């Protein structure tokens, strides 16, 4: 018996159809396929159609009301955590940074192109403005860099304007 409710490309369905016909495999349940219909109005095509000992389901392994409810909470919490705190843990396209609380401090978030010179330009802004950095968290992924800087001073417009002006800056945000 073979069950696949993971990814469509990990089973050779022609080989499976043959193994079911020759009874080398007693039965199968397949929920995911290399090519799936784009919508519920399109026809489902598969070498497994017509084999009675094979359960075919339309990629519904995770499709329940309970899973939808869990998804609502899981993603909403990831968004509010990023909004409140800057943490990007488990982002799919972005440097992952897990951050502590920043009570009583101002936190500057700086997203930039991952090119040489950006970090030294950022640090220069702080030293020129005589601002003491109490924590700094940097991570890069591909072409993107993400640095979070906690400062003890109150955030000033001058500081954020200078940071935003650095070449390669994509986004800046302040949290307090």
């Amino acid at each position, binding site marked *: 018996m073979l069950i696949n409710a993971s*990814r469509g490309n990990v089973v050779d369905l022609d080989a499976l159809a043959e193994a079911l016909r020759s009874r080398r495999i007693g039965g199968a349940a397949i*929920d995911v396929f290399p090519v799936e219909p784009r919508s519920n109005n399109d026809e489902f095509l598969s070498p497994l159609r017509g084999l009675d000992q094979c*359960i075919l389901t339309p990629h519904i392994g995770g499709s329940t009301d309970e899973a939808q*409810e869990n998804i*609502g909470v*899981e993603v909403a919490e990831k968004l509010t955590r990023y909004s409140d705190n800057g943490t990007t843990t*488990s982002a799919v*396209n972005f440097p992952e940074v897990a951050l502590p609380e920043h009570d009583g401090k101002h936190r500057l978030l700086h997203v930039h192109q991952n090119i040489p010179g950006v970090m030294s330009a950022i640090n220069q802004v702080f030293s020129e403005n005589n601002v003491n950095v109490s924590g700094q968290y940097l991570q890069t*992924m591909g072409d993107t860099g993400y640095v979070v800087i906690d400062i003890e001073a109150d955030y000033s417009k001058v500081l954020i304007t200078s940071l935003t002006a650095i070449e390669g800056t994509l986004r800046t945000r302040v949290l307090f």
Partner: protein
Amino acid sequence: MKQQSLQKSKIKFLLLEGIHPSAIDALAKAGYDNVVCCPEALPTEELMAEIKDAHFVGIRSRTQLSAKVIEAAPRLVAIGCFCIGTNQVDLEAASRNGIPVFNAPFSNTRSVAELVMTEVILLLRGVPQRSAAAHRGEWQKTADGSHECRGKTLGIIGYGNIGMQLGVIAEGLGMKVIYFDIESKLPLGNAQPKATLSSLLEDAHVVSLHVPQHAST
């Protein structure tokens, strides 16, 4: 009241495609109540108009967030895919614009494991073929080739969140659980790791796959 960098009521969340109300509750709990909900996916023009002043957007699988749409959202801070896959988002355009994308890779764990467990039983009892035959008017009453799952061996390939959850359920029904994973994983319950894929295939009565899509799988 504590002074904040940006008032939470000014932070706009745009939730499309009838995202579950649990999301709105979770946002409210964190103090965010400026939430615009839409039961459907929006056509590109309408989407671009709505997303223009949004700070966060939540979608499911039908909304296409192309580079064009992302670039039409100057205030966008992050994107939430309230689903597993993220193919509907131009991830590169999002990173290029400094926007992280989040999804929910683990929320469906239990749902998948439960479905697989029922299929183990249905297959061991030959239910699919007998049901299909009955629909055609054939009566296949026989005990031949039908087995209880109790005492049989379930082989789990890929012992991640779903594989582990399935193992726990299967043991509850009296199955012996073995697994193979490319990383060494601590077993839950009495599950036993197998050193090689072929030794798992030799010992298992039923094999279930829980692997990611990857060149090696």
